[in-house]
């Protein structure tokens, strides 16, 4: 499997290929041991915590474009999200644990989305709703970024816009994923672990999470 290629930034691609092999079942040795250990539920407490987490998502109010209207329809009275327990939409990312990216992510908005995702507290999940943020959707052009390029996404919901039933199906799939308690290790590929707070003066504090007076970054 050794293939020489030019070194890519942070070996992203090699780890991605390793992850793909893991999913296909081509593991051996200590990779396999680690895989089994991370996946088998060791305690009932783990299962109980995962059940609680999965049934009480606090989604973030984050609508970008047309999919946001269908997202509002999911919350509205016909296709009611409250019967699953997920109606507590929070406006602050610090209080939310599920970000539903509904709509097209333009290049101006991508750093903002990433910053909001960083501000959310672990454990956090992301749903990419609609074709535009999952892939490029209808618009394959200079102005859009597929969300997979800059943040880890757990569930992609296809559609343009997806029906409210489709989005609910996606959230239920996410719930079943959460109930299995998957390891968050794959988020390391995106440097998405431990990003909630960046203090000035730390290494890497040239990050966008630090605000100075008069800072209007991202304009």
């Amino acid at each position: 499997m050794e293939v020489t290629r030019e070194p890519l930034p942070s070996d992203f691609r090699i780890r991605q290929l390793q992850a793909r092999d893991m999913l296909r079942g081509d593991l051996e040795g200590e990779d396999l041991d680690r895989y089994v250990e991370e996946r088998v539920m060791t305690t009932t407490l783990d299962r109980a915590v995962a059940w609680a987490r999965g049934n009480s998502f606090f989604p973030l109010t984050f609508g970008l474009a047309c999919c946001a209207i269908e997202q509002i329809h999911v919350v509205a009275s016909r296709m009611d999200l409250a019967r699953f327990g997920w109606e507590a939409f929070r406006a602050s990312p610090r209080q939310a644990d599920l970000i539903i990216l509904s709509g097209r992510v333009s290049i101006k908005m991508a750093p903002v989305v990433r910053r909001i995702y960083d501000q959310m507290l672990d454990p956090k999940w992301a749903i990419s709703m609609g074709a535009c943020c999952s892939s490029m959707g209808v618009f394959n052009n200079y102005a859009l970024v597929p969300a997979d390029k800059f943040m880890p996404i757990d569930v992609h919901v296809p559609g343009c816009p997806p029906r409210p039933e489709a989005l609910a199906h996606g959230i239920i799939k996410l719930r079943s994923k959460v109930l299995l308690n998957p390891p968050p290790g794959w988020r390391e590929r995106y440097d998405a672990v431990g990003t909630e707070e960046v203090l000035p003066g730390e290494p890497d504090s040239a990050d966008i999470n630090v605000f100075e007076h008069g800072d209007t970054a991202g304009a």
Partner: protein
Amino acid sequence: MPDATALELTAQELRDSDSDSVLDTEFHRGRAVLVVNPNRIKAVLARLHNRGYGFLASLHGVDYYPHEPRLGVLYELLDMYNVDRISVKTRVSTESPKLESVVEIFPGAEFQEREVYDMFGVQFEGHPDLRRILMPEDYEGHPQRRDFPVGGEPVLFTYNEERSYGKDV
């Protein structure tokens, strides 16, 4: 919409007051267009404003590549009392894409001129705040010019997924 004869009369009136302002008139499918010299655009629009066309419905740019001069700016004017529309067109080249801003006559042109600057690179002199409005501020290039690539992500199939990942697209 003015018919063809009214358009010619308007053009003649403008030429009488300022000889080299109106270069041409076009009348196609009921739409009257005055093609105006870019140096005289503000004066022509002020005169049309006084003649009753007091509402600027739209200000947008067109790239006429490969016909020179390339960058066109269109002003769609509306006379609400006589329910009359007229379009004014100017064309500038990419080497000197300068036009006078008409924000003093039509304050509603502010955002629209910024958009034409952002997308085509036409610089409006006298605009209070000419900066990019839709693209990020440090973006290079003017996206809606015809020679700017559409861009986008390549669709990954198994035959090209190893090759095309990581390249700057």
